[in-house]
């Protein structure tokens, strides 16, 4: 665990091209004696030479350690810089930080994952983690369903991962907002896939994507009868320290980096969250 300001060196072992904008960087700590453990939903502070730091969710499962995956979309200076790096280059990491998804409560539950774009990254960690546990424990989870929305067919990331999940029994349903190619699948927003999902009292929903998507998915899940305690999402904020000190991610008395980034809808309802207020 690195909860200081001095990053630990990590090696980029492999780079997996997910789409034009997104790649997964597979990291391994250089100093193997540094203890490192995390749970799905936690994030790292990633240092890139001359670019400073950014908060990035871990997209692999803790069961894949010592390898740590960070799936990164080109969004700003730092994220563009890492896309120019090569296997064998080094980055710095601090963490893990934040509260994870409550995986300890997932036994015998029907898990519904709703993701948009790069929002699949933190959920991917949960899916891989739950699949691993299903393979060794009988009651790990009851069922897993993924509803995954992308802008266009070319924007679909993690395609081979999704194919693997499908083979392992995860019900994966994909949709694209619009298409100009010969895409045979669903066209429409991810919310259009929700009515076909058989929601029960046993469902736990995990939602991650752009703020506007989260807002509408949560509203629809509530309307379908999903309780506030069974809906979880993860918030994205500008962060500098990861330890609740720098103030950037302050949200109505809470620090997203320490008290989140994973929140249940019942927690969000007690807070003044701008994304969901209008």
């Amino acid at each position, binding site marked *: 665990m690195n*909860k*200081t*300001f*001095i*990053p630990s*060196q990590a090696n980029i072992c492999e780079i997996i091209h997910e789409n034009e904008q997104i790649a997964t960087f597979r990291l391994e700590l250089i100093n193997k004696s540094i203890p490192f453990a995390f749970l799905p939903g936690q994030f790292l502070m990633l*240092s890139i*030479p*001359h*670019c*400073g*730091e*950014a908060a990035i969710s871990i997209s692999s499962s803790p069961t894949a350690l010592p390898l740590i995956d960070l799936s990164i979309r080109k*969004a*700003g*200076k*730092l*994220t563009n810089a890492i896309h120019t790096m090569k296997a*064998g*280059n*080094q*980055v*710095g990491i601090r963490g893990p930080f934040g509260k994870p998804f409550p995986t300890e409560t997932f036994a015998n539950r029907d898990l519904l994952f709703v993701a948009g774009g790069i929002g699949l990254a933190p959920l991917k960690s949960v899916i891989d983690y739950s699949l691993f546990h299903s393979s060794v424990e009988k009651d790990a989870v009851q069922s897993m369903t993924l509803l995954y929305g992308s802008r266009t067919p070319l924007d679909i990331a993690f395609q081979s991962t999704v194919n693997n999940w499908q083979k392992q029994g995860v019900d994966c349903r994909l949709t694209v907002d619009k298409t100009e190619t010969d895409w045979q699948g669903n066209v429409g927003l991810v919310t259009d896939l929700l009515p076909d999902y058989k929601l029960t009292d046993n469902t736990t929903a995990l939602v991650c994507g752009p*703020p506007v998507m989260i807002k509408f998915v949560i509203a629809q899940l509530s309307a379908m009868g999903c309780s506030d305690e069974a809906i979880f999402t993860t918030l*994205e*904020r*500008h962060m*500098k*320290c990861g*330890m*609740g*000190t*720098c*103030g*950037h*991610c*302050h949200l109505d*008395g809470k620090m997203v980096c*320490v008290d989140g980034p994973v929140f249940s809808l019942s927690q969000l309802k007690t807070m003044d*969250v*701008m*994304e969901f207020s209008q």
Partner: protein
Amino acid sequence: MIDLKEMILSKDNLIPLLRKLKKDARLIAPVQNKYGDTLFREIDDIDGTEIDLHNQPQASLKPFFLPQQETLADYTITNGEYSFTPPAKAEDTIFFGVRSCDLTALLYMDLIFSKPSKDPTYYDRRNHSLIITLGCNQPFPNCFCEATGSGPYLEYGYGLQFIDLGDRYFVSAGRGKGADLLKKWAYFFREVNEEDQQKRYQLFLEARGQFTRNIQVAHACRKLEKETVPEEIWEKLSRRCYDCGGCAYVCPTCTCFSIDDMILDAKHGLRIRTWDACTSSGFTRMAGGHNPTDRSRHALKRRFLHKLKYDFERHGKASCTGCGRCIDICFGGVDITTFIDLLTTQTQKKP
């Protein structure tokens, strides 16, 4: 009684005492510069420098513990290797002439920088420091420390607390280093007598009676516990906030910071921590441009609620120390006292 020891120091003995102290540590005290500004600075020549104990220092102790810019690490990039080195250690430092509000602010910063673990550079400086405060017999025009429970005199937290009794100082020692210091240099001091005690108490009562500002801090905190602030108040304040960050920079308890890299050359750089202000427009903006804060309406919401609501909830005390510095710095006239006034006078109108 928290004070371990109380003694009297004749004013004639002040400089000789400081001269002794300076042999073992850096000495920082308020000095008026040629422009008339009183600021804390290192005293190299104790006999050739006049320590200014009459004016309020324009900056608090914050820059000495959380510098406006500091190096958290050096980094090197060689042949694909990317490594970090922590900075050098702090030196022993004695601060003299610190006001009660500024020590209270430092005690608050101790709290902030102790979670989840002790901030390395902050606590390195803090552990190498000894604070000698000067109780305020005459509050300055913008002061309201009485309303925030951080003055004019203090009960704890100091290394030594000096109270000016005219020709002598009434000195109280805190635990640890302060008490040790008093013991070590006992020959500069004499015992406290009944008259000294009475004079100190008399001056304390007089000081409390001289505050000119009546800021309803406690009332505001209790109101924020129960009620939401009307949107009109936030909008009114936001219209007059010019995004200068002055309030956050002079505030002794504003500790928000940013961390960025400063490139030295192709292979070297510094990881720098700098002051930041939650009132600035880029504070919450993310890569790609999404900003979860609407500055046009809520420019000051975070700052005031943090000090008066969240910290009151968490620590039982607002994190405003009543030093009054933000009142002079804000050219929009929307400092914390404006907010408190708007909030509390509105209650009185409502039935």
